[in-house]
C-alpha cells in the first residue's frame, strides 16, 4: 500500500482528487446513479433500496468512526491529511452501499467498477489503509441488511430481493 500511494498516475490522480472532495463524490455519485437508474429502468426496483442503503451506510460509517476513533496515518502528501478518524472509509462506504443492492441486476458491474475505483483512489492518495476499506464493506453490508428489512416490511419494491 505504501508503494501504491507513492506512485503518480496522471489521469487517476485527477480522478482521485475530484473524488476526495465531498462535493466531487456527491456529484459523481449522483450523476452515476441517475444514468444507471434511467438506463436500466431501476426507478421502482432497485432505487429505493439503494437510497436507504446509502443513507444508513453513511450514518453507520460516521458512527463507527466516532466509536473506534482510529487515528489516520497518511502515507503521501498528495492531499492534506484529513483530521477525521480513518476507520472505516466514508468514501469507500458510498461505493459499496451502491454495489450491494445491485446484485442480480445489469448495473452490478458498473457499481463494482465505481466501488473499486473509489477504494483505489483512497489507497492511492494514501489517506486510508486496506483495513479501512474492508471496514467500509462491513458497514455497507450492515446498512444493506437493514435497508432490505425496511424495504421488504414497508413493501417499497414489488419484486423479490434475492440477496
Amino acid at each position: 500500500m505504501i508503494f501504491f500511494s507513492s506512485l503518480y498516475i496522471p489521469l487517476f490522480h485527477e480522478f482521485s482528487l475530484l473524488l476526495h472532495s465531498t462535493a466531487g463524490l456527491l456529484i459523481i455519485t449522483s450523476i452515476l446513479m441517475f444514468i444507471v437508474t434511467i438506463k436500466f429502468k431501476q426507478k421502482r426496483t432497485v432505487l429505493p433500496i439503494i437510497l436507504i442503503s446509502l443513507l444508513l451506510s453513511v450514518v453507520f460509517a460516521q458512527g463507527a468512526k466516532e466509536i473506534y476513533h482510529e487515528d489516520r496515518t497518511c502515507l503521501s502528501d498528495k492531499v492534506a491529511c484529513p483530521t477525521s478518524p480513518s476507520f472505516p472509509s466514508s468514501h469507500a462506504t458510498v461505493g459499496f452501499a451502491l454495489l450491494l443492492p445491485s446484485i442480480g441486476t445489469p448495473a452490478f458491474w458498473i457499481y463494482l467498477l465505481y466501488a473499486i475505483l473509489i477504494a483505489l483512489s483512497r489507497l492511492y492518495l494514501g489517506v486510508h489503509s486496506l483495513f479501512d476499506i474492508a471496514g467500509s464493506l462491513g458497514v455497507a453490508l450492515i446498512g444493506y441488511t437493514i435497508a432490505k428489512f425496511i424495504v421488504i416490511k414497508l413493501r417499497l419494491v414489488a419484486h423479490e430481493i434475492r440477496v
Partner: protein
Amino acid sequence: MRSEYERQIIHIILGILFIVLNYFIGRELLSILLFFVILLGLILMQIKLYHKYKLPYVDKLLFKFERPRVTPGLGSLWYVVGVFITGLMFIDFAKFTAVILILAIGDGFATIFGLSGRHPLPWNKRKTVEGTTAFIIGGSTVLLIYPSPLTFFIILLSAIGESIPSCIDDNILIPLIAGTLFFIF
C-alpha cells in the same frame, strides 16, 4: 436430511476454524482476507443470478452443500459476512470468539436438533422448541469464556432472535444481535 446434518457440521467446524485463524493472523489480516472472499462471492453470485452461467467446481460444491430452492451460495456468503462483521467489530479476541461460538455452535445445534423437533414455536411454525433449546445449550459454550448471567442473557436473546421469522439471514442476524449486545456490555 443427511445433507443438512453435514451442512451444520461444516457450519460448526468453519466457525471454529475462523476463531483459530483470527488467533494466528489477527483481526486486520482476517478482515482483509474475508473482504476479498466476500467480493469474490458477490461476483460469483452476480454471475449465477444474472448471467446464469455454469461454474464447474462452484456448481458442484453448491449442489452438494447448499439447501435446495434457495439462491445458490447465499447462505455460505452470509456466514462469511457474519464472521467478517464480527471481526471488524471486536478488537477483543475473546468477544469475537464468543460471538462466533454462538453463531457456529448455537445456530448449528439449533438446526441439527430442531429438524427432528416435534413442538413448533408459537411465533414461528418453521422452528421448534427443541431447536431453540439446542441453540441455548450449544451457545452456552460461551459461558466458558464469559461465565456470567449477562452472557446467558445474550445467548437467550440471540436464540429468540434466531427463532423469529425474518428476511435477514440467521448467519448475519445472530452476529448482529450477539455482537451488538457484547459490544454494549
